[in-house]
């Protein structure tokens, strides 16, 4: 964890000094992010989603959101957007307290969410900088079509790369991209190992609350870097040790003593009360063994690896394969598999108000998963970064009732 803090700290310092160093800055999104490509151009990425979630964790999001609402944004829409706009209006100071540089390019990888498009159109109004739009077709029928891949590659060639070249003044260097892709694949192997360590009983990790720390670097600026590779090596070693000693996952209260429930989680966590939320599970001995949220920036555990042999095509496949770009049936399949593979006692859906991309259809997923797996599901509602939508008592009541239900069920089965 310490290592991660350092990495992130350095990244924000680099960003703060981008102007003085003459580095170019590109804003982009987590799902379908083209980190390797950006890296090959030497630009620094800023991920507004991450800023928003960090603001949530540091309890600043409430103010930012109301600032955006004051600017005329509706209370109904995604709070990540409002949190970001609010932060911008309040001086664009990033999570580490350093000011963020303005973008030289907005790289709109339009993957798995329509709100992304509006978000960057809104930012474009503010910054008047170029936008590169990469339209990633939705995997509506559960598979990747060749002509969809071609469409993405063509867009990379005709839209994204030329704009990066124009902004940086550098030429596209395919070899550098390949190198980065190779580094990505290496880190991805270790990440998958870490996530799959949760198949052990008891699990050495929590693949949701703990999981967000594990995916942090690979979903953001550090994929395709040496630092990223090393981070995952260290992480893997740590978990190997934990596993050998049969130790449980870390929780806000220290190490978990007894694993009483194994859960699969669907949906992003709440950030404004992240620890409190986590504690509601850990106090009852509930461990999340697999989650879909940790797949929004890539679904590596189902076999995808960045492939240096097909540099642009692999980027296309990566974009299309992110979790929120999967069709609902594919999402149901995935979670049903997780429930079986990870021997889960139950699954829980955290439905967040902000995110239609995640939330629409979750109630049907709930039904379908229960029918298919015979495992009962739980349903809670909150939001990502809007503190107004975290009703602690309510959520606690539901989690508690749900876990007691699992226990009661187990009681009769035994």
């Amino acid at each position, binding site marked *: 964890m310490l290592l991660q803090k350092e990495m992130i700290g350095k990244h924000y310092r680099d960003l703060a000094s981008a102007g003085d160093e003459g580095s170019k800055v590109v804003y982009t999104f987590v799902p379908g992010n083209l980190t390797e490509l950006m890296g090959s151009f030497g630009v620094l990425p800023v991920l507004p989603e991450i800023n928003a979630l960090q603001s949530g964790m540091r309890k600043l999001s409430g103010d930012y959101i109301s600032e955006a609402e004051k600017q005329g944004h509706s209370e109904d829409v995604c709070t990540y957007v409002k949190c970001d706009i609010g932060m911008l209006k309040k001086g664009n100071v990033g999570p580490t307290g350093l000011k963020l540089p303005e973008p030289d390019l907005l790289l709109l990888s339009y993957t798995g969410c329509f709100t992304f498009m509006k978000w960057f159109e809104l930012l474009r109004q503010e910054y008047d900088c170029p936008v590169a739009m990469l339209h990633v077709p939705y995997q509506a029928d559960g598979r990747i079509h060749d002509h969809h891949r071609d469409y993405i590659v063509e867009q990379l060639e005709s839209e994204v790369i030329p704009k990066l070249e124009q902004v940086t003044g550098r030429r596209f260097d395919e070899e550098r991209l390949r190198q980065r892709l190779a580094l990505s694949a290496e880190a991805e192997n270790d990440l998958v190992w870490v996530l799959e360590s949760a198949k052990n009983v008891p699990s050495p990790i929590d693949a949701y609350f703990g999981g967000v720390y594990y995916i942090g670097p690979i979903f953001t600026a550090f994929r395709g870097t040496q630092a990223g590779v090393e981070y995952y090596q260290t992480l893997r070693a740590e978990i190997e040790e934990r596993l050998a000693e049969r130790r449980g996952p870390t929780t806000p209260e220290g190490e978990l003593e007894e694993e009483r429930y194994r859960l699969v989680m669907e949906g992003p966590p709440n950030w404004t009360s992240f620890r409190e939320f986590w504690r509601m599970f850990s106090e009852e001995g509930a461990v999340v063994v697999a989650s879909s949220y940790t797949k929004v920036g890539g679904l590596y555990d189902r076999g995808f690896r960045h492939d240096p042999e097909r540099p642009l095509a692999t980027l296309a496949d990566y974009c299309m394969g992110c979790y929120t770009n999967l069709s609902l049936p594919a999402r149901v399949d995935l979670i049903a598999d997780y429930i079986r593979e990870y021997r889960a006692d139950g699954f829980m859906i955290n439905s967040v108000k902000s995110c239609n991309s995640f939330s629409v259809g979750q*109630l049907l997923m709930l*039904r379908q998963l*229960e029918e298919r797996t015979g495992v*009962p*599901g739980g*349903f809670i*509602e909150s939001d990502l970064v809007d503190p107004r939508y975290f*009703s602690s008592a*309510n959520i606690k*009541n*539901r989690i*508690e*009732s749900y876990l*007691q*239900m699992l226990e*009661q*069920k187990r009681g*009769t089965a035994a």
Partner: protein
Amino acid sequence: MNIFVGVDLGSTTTKAVLLDERGTIAGRGITNSRSNYEVASRVAREEALVTARFNLVRNALVADSELAGIADGFVPLLERTFRREQYRDQLRRLRGELHRSGDRGRRSQSPTRLREVLDLIVDEMDERADRHFGALAVRKSDFFRDLAGGDYMALAERFAEPGGVEFETLSGLFDRAILPVENSVSETPMEELVGRALDAAVGASGPRGGAAAGLELAVARVRSTPLEELSSVGTGYGRQRLPFPKEQIRSEILCHGLGAHVMFPATKTVLDIGGQDTKAIQVDENGIVTSFQMNDRCAAGCGRYLGYIADEMNLGVHELGPLAQQATTCVKINSTCTVFAGAELRERLSLGQRREDILAGLHRAIVLRAMSLLARSGGVREEFTFTGGVARNPAAVAALEQLVAENYGERTINISPDSIYTGALGAALFALSASRKAA
């Protein structure tokens, strides 16, 4: 006798159920929830103990061939007598509190004048007690607050002007005085009230000679039977505040599921509409919850919705249903929010729409919301049990029956007159099984 206690601390009512060792219901008690949860749960429990005693009396009488004939008349008499005693006792405390708040206020009226009027009102209330507890009386509510409140307001309206006191002042005083009355326990122990009632009932019941002696003996035996609480479990909205250790607290969802299962063993789907939340629960053949859904914290769609509407119309909650059943058409209510629905109601009334028809619409609205929740939890399966306070409302039941039939076809719908106790029953069952396991 050993007993096991389940307490369901709801948002509007607090219920207690006592089970004996064989799992049969020994007694039930209910009171309105109030700011002091501990008092609420204690009162509910004591009420349940009282009914347990009454049941014991009944059993003793039925068991005795000579007395069996009078059991049917005696127990209700006993109950009425007890309630009247209890009501009077509470009235005494109300009088005290009324005086106290009357003296405290800085009002333009002279305190003595105010006291006089208050006394006039309470005296009259005391005299009216028999109207509530007479043999043929239809009691409007189980709760002192409602019974006394109704009388008080009516009398205040009558005495205010001649007494030279403003009605608003009087009504304000009641609102203030009722709180401490509810939140403290009577100095007269419940057992003593029960004893008094027993004595009075024996005196008034009329059997002579040997029967009288037998009755006295049976009653004396019941009076001396100890009721020992072996374990208890708490549930409900306020369960976290109950003075119980954590392992004696159970989620209300599980309790409702189990309670419904025990009342109607073939139950598959349970709908509970309580005062402040609505739950749709699916259970398996053992009464174990397999999935559930509950609504958000918004009164639209809960019992309070109807309570609020009843207030708006100056009616008691129990009067709403029967009125709505006299509707000729069902008005579509546009407002979701309870408060706005209240405003809509006034607006519609002023436009000349019939009260009954609007009420029918309001009942349908709340049931519609419950239907969505049911659908969300997995639909209505055979058999279906409707619990919670709103199950006492015939119009809500009728609307539910109709909508269930329309959407799911024929389903057996179970409704028990005791359905309000479902959660407490479930809790008591948990208490019983915990102690069996421990043994």
